[in-house]
């Protein structure tokens, strides 16, 4: 059988989106593991407690490491302090915008919205754009031509992933889009998933972001130092690496165009520190199947559905032991994907 090595078009305005619609893959019904309603209701219960505790620890750790970094500025001792501050700012913000974007982290709505806005700024993801982009990601997870959040298209561009460890590709794109939005326009792809009524909000927030960055730049000029930018703005870049390490595990190398999250998402077991930094997003199959379950209940949800799911990866190492060879193989054969459930049909074309 001939191997099809042609790369697919992942654009939302190319031909693949229409093909996905023709095949019934857009806005389709997804597989869900059976859970009795009573149990699911219990898992969906909201509470402010866990997220208040975690957010207090997160903010305190940011304040402490940021103050230490500023205090030690000019010495080599500031490097470990910025390392910690950068990860908390540029990487932990990834799971915070995500959970608060679903409005499940806290029970109280305004708390979700405040942390969402803060975390979006930290990771340089414009809140309105990403709210709508993420809704589409949940509707059409890893459906080519429909999902705007396919982090690793086939064949994988490995240098791009490595550049993103310091947000050099994703950050540059985000900055370019900020200017486009601030000028009162959207990129054509964004017009496919952001309703017109929300466009004005995108433009206003982009202008606010640019004003904040201008103020940081002015502060740098005033004190003749990049210290202000090291605390606000640059941590998105130098501290974003862990978000990429986590994020690549979510879907890379798995099936495309399949309506079963067990076949296109990964659940990876992690230690409590990593799970704090990642707010349990490592339970990614479970999150996609039941997005109404808050992050703090995902370990319990995992216990309920695990017999119906592929076994979780026991560590990040184990996940990457599969991902790296899969991506290398896809660079020669983009039709290849990892299939983990015997008997399940994971055809990706």
């Amino acid at each position, binding site marked *: 059988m001939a191997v099809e090595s042609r790369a697919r078009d992942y654009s939302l305005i190319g031909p693949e989106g229409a093909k996905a619609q023709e095949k019934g893959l857009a*806005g389709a019904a997804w597989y869900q593991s059976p859970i009795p*309603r009573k149990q699911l*209701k219990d898992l*969906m219960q*909201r509470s402010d407690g866990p997220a208040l505790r975690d957010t207090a620890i997160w903010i305190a750790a940011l304040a402490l490491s940021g103050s230490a970094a500023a205090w030690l500025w000019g010495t080599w001792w500031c490097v470990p302090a910025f390392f910690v501050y950068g990860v908390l700012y540029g990487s932990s913000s990834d799971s915070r915008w995500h959970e608060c974007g*679903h*409005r*499940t982290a806290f*029970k109280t709505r305004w708390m979700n919205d405040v942390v969402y806005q803060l975390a979006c700024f930290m990771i340089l993801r414009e809140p*309105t754009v990403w*709210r*709508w982009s993420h*809704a589409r990601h*949940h*509707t059409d997870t890893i459906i080519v031509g429909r999902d705007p959040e396919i982090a690793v298209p086939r064949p994988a561009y490995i240098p791009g992933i490595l550049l993103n460890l310091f947000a050099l590709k994703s950050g540059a794109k985000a900055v370019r889009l900020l200017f486009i939005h601030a000028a009162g326009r959207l990129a054509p792809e964004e017009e496919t998933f952001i*309703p017109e*009524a*929300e466009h004005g909000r995108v433009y206003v927030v982009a202008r606010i972001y640019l004003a904040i960055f201008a103020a940081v730049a002015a502060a740098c000029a005033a004190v003749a130092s990049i210290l202000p930018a090291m605390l606000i703005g640059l941590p998105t870049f130098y501290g974003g690496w862990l978000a990429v390490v986590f994020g690549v595990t979510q879907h890379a190398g798995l099936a495309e165009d399949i309506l079963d999250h067990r076949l296109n998402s990964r659940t990876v077991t992690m230690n409590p520190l990593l799970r704090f930094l990642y707010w349990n997003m490592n339970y990614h199959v479970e999150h996609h199947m*039941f*997005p*109404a379950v808050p992050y703090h209940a995902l370990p319990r949800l995992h216990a309920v559905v695990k017999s119906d799911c592929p076994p979780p990866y026991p560590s990040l190492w184990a996940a990457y032991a599969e991902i790296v060879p899969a991506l290398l193989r896809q660079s020669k054969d983009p039709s290849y994907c990892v299939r983990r459930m015997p008997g399940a049909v994971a055809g990706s074309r």
Partner: protein
Amino acid sequence: MSGAPAAIWVAACAADDVEREDVVRFDHDGRTYAIYHSPDDAYYATDGLCTHEEAHLAEGFVSGTIIECPKHNGRFDYRTGEAKGAPVCVNLKIYPVKIEAGRIFIDLA
């Protein structure tokens, strides 16, 4: 003269079928509805499909007087049908409800 259309009361389910602060699905005549039991022991009915992307609201989460859609967590006040913000922008249609002999009827007129 045309006034309000005559009520068309349709039996949906037993009142006991809907737990307090919960929702059940009711299908009738090719359409889907959602029936709610509020914390203060009142019953309400809305269209059963979310106005965003038509997920079944009966699979969602009821918290107080809010139904949260299971797909993208969009929220509605199920008493009024009011959409409470992105990604839901269009209000939900609501239906009058009455209880008779322990059964829930909704007016589909």
